[in-house]
């Protein structure tokens, strides 16, 4: 091993898998070896059995569907509002001066702390879940997009001006296309955070979703189901992240040449 020395594709893959194997190994050793009480931590085989039951007996697919729907619903609404606003802030400094302090303040308000308030306002239905995701994502996206757009290469803007572009042309044909890969990357990042908020939203006052299943299992001390729920969240997150990454690479091939 030498610093910054690249590792081959196959070796990288093997090393990545090796840690998962090691992890499950240590877990099996402690649970099956009787070092940990099954009440507190289920063993891998128990978890697999519980997972099977979840799908066949408890309609877990419906829970997964609900959670995914909430994440994407809240996230899409947040992105639809935040991206244009962020672009406007990045491009026009008076708009930034007007909104930036407030948005920065809001960004530090923890989305989960809003849950009691949102239940009061919107009940325990879907609106409340979507609002939690929305509040958790919208301010982050606005600020990050504004920074990316504001960091546009000045020389490209100047070149566009000398080619006859007006300020509308600068925004539409220089700032937005130049910032697009960065904006897509921001959305990918924030989508990851949205997954955290949805589970918290589902832990309280919910009748479906992965988070709801986890709370139910806690009451029954079914650690196998809890662990499987957490793993499912991780897997879905990983898959959506890969899909997003692949899409960005395809859409913005020019930025990775």
């Amino acid at each position, binding site marked *: 091993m030498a610093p910054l020395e690249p590792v081959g594709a196959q070796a990288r893959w093997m090393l990545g898998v090796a840690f998962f194997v090691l992890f499950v190994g240590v877990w099996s050793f402690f649970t099956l070896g009787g070092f940990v009480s099954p009440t507190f931590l289920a063993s891998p085989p128990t978890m697999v059995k519980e997972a099977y039951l979840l799908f066949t007996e408890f309609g877990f697919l419906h829970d997964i569907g609900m959670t995914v729907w909430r994440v994407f619903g809240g996230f899409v609404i947040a992105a639809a509002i935040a991206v244009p606003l962020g672009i406007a802030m990045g491009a026009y400094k008076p708009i930034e001066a007007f909104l930036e302090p407030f948005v920065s303040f809001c960004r530090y308000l923890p989305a989960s702390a809003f849950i009691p308030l949102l239940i009061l306002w919107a009940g325990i239905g879907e609106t409340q879940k979507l609002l939690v995701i929305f509040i958790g994502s919208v301010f982050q996206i606005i600020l990050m997009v504004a920074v990316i757009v504001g960091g546009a290469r000045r020389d*490209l803007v100047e*070149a566009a*001006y*000398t*080619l*006859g572009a007006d300020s509308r042309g600068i925004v539409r044909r220089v700032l937005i296309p130049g910032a697009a890969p960065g904006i897509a990357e921001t959305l990918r990042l924030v989508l990851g955070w949205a997954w955290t908020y949805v589970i918290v939203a589902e832990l309280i006052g919910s009748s479906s979703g992965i988070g709801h299943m986890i709370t139910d299992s806690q009451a029954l001390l079914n650690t196998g189901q809890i662990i499987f729920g957490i793993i499912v969240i991780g897997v879905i997150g990983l898959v959506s992240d890969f899909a997003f990454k692949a899409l960005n690479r395809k859409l913005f091939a020019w930025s990775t*040449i």
Partner: protein
Amino acid sequence: MADTAQLSIRGVSRTFTGAKGQSTQALLPVDFDVRENDFVTILGPSGCGKSTLLRIVAGLDYPTGGQVLLDGRNVEGPGADRGMVFQSYTLFPWLDIEHNIRFGLRERGMPEAQQKERVDYFIAKVGLRGFERHFPKQLSGGMQQRTAIARALANDPKILLMDEPFGALDNQTRVLMQELLLGIWEAERKTVMFVTHDIDEAIFMANRVAVFSARPGRIKTELAVDLPHPRHYTIKTSPEFMELKARLTEEIRAESMAAAEH
């Protein structure tokens, strides 16, 4: 012929104000005329304010005093009538070569077919046929600057402003680019204002060289270059060329030494 000046720079000066309120005079009042079809090079040591003057003509910077007139009209802000080629690579990385050259034409709302025709003409002119679908990062520095020249020319500006466009290129490429640009100028007869710190380049390209003083900048000398066209690179070893070079070397040397003392 002063009455046929296309570009007229009248008493243009520029003072920069620093963050702590201290001011730096970058440009003393400059008076300078460029006639139609002129190829003028502005020669000076680095940091002398010659680029600032060009940027003011382009409308990317503003003068603290004086004014710039293009065809008798006051210049306020940048516009398509003054095309510019920068020293840094300023092609839009998300557009391929063809669409980079089309940028200004599209912005102007030119019909698609006409855009295509103009772009094809200039792509051929700068020798980039076959590279239409390449992205800027896939091209060498010289090819990128050729595209930038085509992009500026396709817009059919009244005057072409060039800010050390070959400054970042290696010597061999730079010489080839000079010949290419001169060939285009000989054919198209555009008005060109070209900033450089390279004496050979200044003489080879120009029919007039303006020598800038060290900061604060002003035009110290103007020199007509009466070498015949078309010019071949071998002209650089002719006695006339050598004589001009000797004179300009002397002028620049004094200014570079003045600049180094600051």
